[in-house]
């Protein structure tokens, strides 16, 4: 019974594209998930956690919704695995502490569980989750945060980069090609994560939603109740700061 094989790792991936297969892929996928989680549970006391088997299962949102409404807890677990940490990250950009953000997300899940029957599917499940989370976080953070973020004035770029005639003071060296360098790519992503944590909250919210989560600008404007122009200024400032930080990192400074 105690073979040296490490436990299987199952990752689920929620389909958010229109390219998801039309056939019903969900039932066998769920069955596989249950089987795998049982395996993991049985082998839970093992120390070796290297995966002996990695399954990636793509689940369509429609199918997930049907299962959620039917009370399938594996479906809910998939939702939690996919979104919990991301919701905490989003909430953390609105409220003051990690603990409060965790509470906000707990409340979000409660609202999801209670409201799943009322969800009409007019937006994606993700957008719906983010909406609940942002609203909860804002009401927790207090009224002042509910007012739209104000445009910071002036350019995002450092005036010191340019001569008086507006041209660069020094050559902008192209960055090395990062596509093939996984370690470097991971290092930079990690660095970007830390820079984002230090951005002013409005910039941080927009950068997380646009560039980390990949929402469109209209989705973000809708979610945060800000104008396109405001959203773009905040995004531009955030990106400019991250670029500068990554540039320093790449120069080894």
């Amino acid at each position, binding site marked *: 019974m105690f073979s040296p094989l490490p436990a299987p790792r199952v990752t689920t991936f929620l389909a958010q594209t229109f390219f998801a297969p039309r056939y019903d892929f969900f039932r066998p996928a769920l069955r596989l998930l249950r089987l795998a989680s049982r395996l993991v549970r049985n082998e839970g006391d093992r120390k070796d956690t290297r995966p002996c088997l990695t399954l990636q299962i793509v689940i369509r949102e429609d199918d997930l919704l049907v299962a959620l409404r039917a009370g399938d807890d594996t479906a809910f677990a998939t939702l939690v695995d996919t979104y919990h940490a991301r919701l905490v990250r989003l909430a953390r950009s609105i409220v003051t502490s990690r603990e409060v953000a965790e509470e906000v997300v707990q409340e979000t899940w409660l609202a999801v569980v209670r409201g799943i029957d009322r969800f009409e599917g007019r937006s994606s499940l993700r957008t719906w989750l983010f909406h609940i989370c942002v609203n909860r976080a804002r009401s927790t953070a207090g009224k002042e945060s509910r007012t739209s973020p104000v445009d910071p004035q002036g350019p995002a770029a450092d005036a010191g980069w340019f001569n008086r005639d507006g041209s*660069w003071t020094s050559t902008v060296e192209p960055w090395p090609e990062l596509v093939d360098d996984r370690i470097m790519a991971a290092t930079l992503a990690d660095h970007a994560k830390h820079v984002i944590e230090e951005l002013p909250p409005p910039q941080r919210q927009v950068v997380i939603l646009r560039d980390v989560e990949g929402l469109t600008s209209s989705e973000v404007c809708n979610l945060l109740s800000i104008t396109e122009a405001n959203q773009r200024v905040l995004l531009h400032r955030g*990106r400019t700061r991250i670029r500068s930080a990554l540039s320093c990192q790449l120069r080894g400074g």
Partner: protein
Amino acid sequence: MALLGKDLVCQQAVELVTAYLDDALSWRQRRRFEAHLRGCPNCSAYLEQMRATIASTGRIDPDSLDPEIRDELIKLFRRQHRR
């Protein structure tokens, strides 16, 4: 925006990068921006760096989920559904 008629300088061009990538520039602004890039290796490199920045940000993984919290949430779901 003070972009009428004159050629862009680098300091103005870098402020348009996000709008350019979002396809939010007017046709006129876009043409002027692209004309500047053609003649300016520095701003072209800057644009590529911004693209690489966005790609790096897109690679950020969420933190791992505390198994206790996960279990609690699943219990909550079960309780709610039994009602």
